[in-house]
């Protein structure tokens, strides 16, 4: 073509210098004579002055330096006057920004309906086009060989995505981290070392029956079942109960799956109406509680009249 524009680096750190050079080959510019060539510059629509000089092999040259380029995105134009009109003869797209910020607060949750592992994280604003991927390394060999695979990629601009079951390894530790890359560098989050099963979000258990115990007015028998999707699992559950008068819930912690199908509890006031709810989680660090089960209510027996 008539002119070509070269830039030392089209993507730079915000505020750093950019040098550009526009080379014009008069003989290819619609009959323009070399002497008539006056090279002008525009940064988007802002006129700038370059240093024009004769270039090699009959070309005309103009150099331009932008000492502190700080627009996230701009178009640098090289122009000529021709037949009384301003002609745009070359263009370069410039970008400025920062390497990606380090993603943080990575957390993941396994959905037991489809066994997809949904992870989310916090990320700074992107100054440049940034590609983000959630990386997974299952085996130690994979980790050491740096052959992590991409579990999923968030859709544009989002800070979460879901690793499908087929890329997961259950009941064994995996390393998971977020990798963000743009033209100026790459940043990786802390590595999460988890067994996906340990971060499963359980379905709530079911309170099937709560019956007063004959002859023990201050005791009840709580019949309960873990959800079908966690029927095979080790569980750590907790029961809460409250009578309408009491402001706060009382809590019975550390109920294991072995306590099925029924749990005997005592210490209740007689002849009092209580409301019960149960929830469960995996007995592992970082586990998520299920929602509370639907409530169930019972009135404990009146105290038997003392034999006179």
């Amino acid at each position: 073509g008539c002119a070509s524009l070269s830039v030392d680096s089209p993507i730079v750190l915000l505020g750093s210098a950019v040098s550009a050079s526009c080379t014009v080959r008069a003989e290819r510019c619609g009959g323009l004579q070399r002497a008539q060539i006056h090279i002008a510059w525009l940064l988007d629509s802002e006129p700038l002055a370059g240093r024009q000089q004769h270039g090699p092999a009959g070309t005309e040259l103009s150099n331009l330096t932008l000492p502190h380029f700080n627009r996230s995105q701009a178009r640098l134009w090289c122009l000529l006057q021709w037949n009384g009109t301003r002609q745009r003869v070359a263009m370069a797209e410039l970008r400025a920004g920062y390497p990606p910020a380090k993603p943080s607060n990575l957390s993941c949750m396994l959905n037991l309906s489809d066994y997809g592992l949904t992870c989310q994280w916090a990320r700074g604003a992107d100054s440049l086009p940034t590609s983000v991927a959630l990386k997974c390394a299952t085996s130690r060999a994979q980790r050491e060989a740096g052959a992590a695979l991409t579990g999923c990629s968030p859709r544009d601009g989002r800070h979460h995505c879901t690793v499908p079951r087929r890329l997961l390894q259950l009941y064994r530790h995996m390393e998971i981290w977020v990798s963000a890359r743009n033209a100026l560098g790459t940043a990786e989050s802390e590595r999460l070392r988890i067994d996906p099963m340990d971060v499963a979000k359980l379905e709530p258990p079911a309170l099937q029956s709560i019956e007063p115990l004959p002859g023990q007015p201050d005791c009840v028998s709580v019949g309960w079942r873990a959800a079908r999707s966690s029927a095979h699992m080790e569980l750590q559950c907790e029961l809460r109960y409250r009578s309408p008068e009491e402001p706060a819930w009382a809590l019975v912690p550390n109920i294991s799956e072995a306590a099925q199908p029924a749990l005997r509890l005592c210490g209740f006031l007689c002849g009092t109406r209580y409301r019960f709810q149960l929830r469960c989680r995996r007995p592992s660090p970082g586990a998520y509680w299920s929602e509370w089960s639907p409530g169930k209510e019972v009135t404990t027996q009146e105290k038997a009249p003392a034999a006179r």
Partner: protein
Amino acid sequence: PLPDDVSGDHDFQLFLRKSLEFGRKIKGDVAALQDVVCETFQLCQEEELWLVRQHLDVPAAPLERCQRPGFEADACLEQLHGGLRVLAHSLGAVRELLPAHADLVERLQLDAANLSSNIQQQMEELGLPLVTFPPEGPGVLPAVASRFHQQVGSFFLLRNFQRFLETALRALRHLAR
């Protein structure tokens, strides 16, 4: 040439009215795409790009049989049919330059190809021979070097398309009279 009594034929008149409306729709979408090119690439004024234009051979579809003195109804319809096919095909290159507007470009391609096939079917129903050449090449902008030249190429392609449609609508209005 067109059968003499065709201009009064109801079907032909309906074809012309529908083609006029379709042409207006396409012209509106081309104008919308020109706005996108102006906003996205800062390429808005044709006279600023004449120099670069000399190094691009953006094909323009010929329509001289749709304008005086060479006006000839069946030859004009044939040029409309052929030109729409070339322009529809060449928009493929524009689509790659404007991924965020791929829907608008694709709709434009579908409409241009659709109007071209409507004309072809109408000519077949009128018993008029129609020679169709497959549009060749990857698209309008042969291996041009820089992104800038491709963007300028897309600018001129749309301008040529706009002018093609203006001439086409004038010819269809003349036929409809």
